[in-house]
């Protein structure tokens, strides 16, 4: 398994764990309030800082394990896999955003729209790494 594939696995796991943690807080706060809780900037900033810190630590840890792989630039196949993952995840994000906007038309809850859009960003990132792993495994 190459550096890019390892990074994709690690980033996907980090995004799932941090995303679930973030939304468990949002759901708990919403349940306590009895309505969708308003977006909280400190929580979002905390989430992003934690995510970036985890990504940096993971990249360093994987690089230390095999430094030669980490310093190598992407070959044609890896570039194409990265492009395909990004392209499919982008389409997926566009579709989900369309659904979120239509959902807002039904319920009119702005806070819910905000949380949904933020969740879509996280989900599309997870999908991007998941697709990259799929293409690496398939040998695309």
């Amino acid at each position, binding site marked *: 398994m190459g550096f890019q594939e390892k990074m994709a696995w690690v980033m996907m796991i980090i995004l799932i764990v941090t995303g679930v943690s973030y939304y468990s807080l949002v759901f708990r706060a919403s349940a306590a309030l009895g309505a969708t809780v308003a977006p909280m900037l400190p929580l979002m900033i905390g989430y992003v800082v934690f995510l970036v810190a985890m990504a940096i630590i993971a990249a360093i840890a994987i690089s230390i394990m095999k430094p030669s792989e980490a310093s190598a630039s992407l070959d044609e196949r890896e570039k194409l896999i990265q*492009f395909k993952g990004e392209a499919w*995840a982008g389409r997926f994000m566009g579709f989900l955003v369309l659904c979120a906007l239509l959902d*807002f038309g039904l319920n009119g809850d702005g806070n819910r729209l905000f949380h949904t*859009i933020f969740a879509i960003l996280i989900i599309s990132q997870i999908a991007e790494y998941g697709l990259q792993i799929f293409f690496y495994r398939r040998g695309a």
Partner: protein
Amino acid sequence: MAFWERNTLVLMAGSVLGGVFYFGVVVWQSVAIGAIAAPAWWVYVGYIVFQLCVSLFGTWLFNRNGDEDLTDLPKGDERDQVLRVGSEAVQGHVASALVIGCLLFWFVHQNVALFFHSIVAAMIISEIVRGFVQYHSYQRAI
């Protein structure tokens, strides 16, 4: 100009015209009420239908002669596919960056209608950027 190159231009024009239609109506409504107009179903769905109609009509108009081999359609050849995937990857990045900007901008204005319209704008802009990148790639003969 090849089929997919023409189609890129047509789809980009569809996005531009769709965007002009959507924001033309939103600005017109906003001026009339003196505030940011709330999202309306008919404007949003109208935008999607309008864009689809422009794209379909444009595709028919510019390809009605049928004077080229279309056996590779609908996927196009390998170069078409690489250009499409590359431009869609750029679109994904642009859309993500703009949506993050919209989320952060929310904390400044806290206006749901403005948030909704800014997300629509982000999607339209990313679609136009995709078309531009793809067309530029064709012109550069990548």
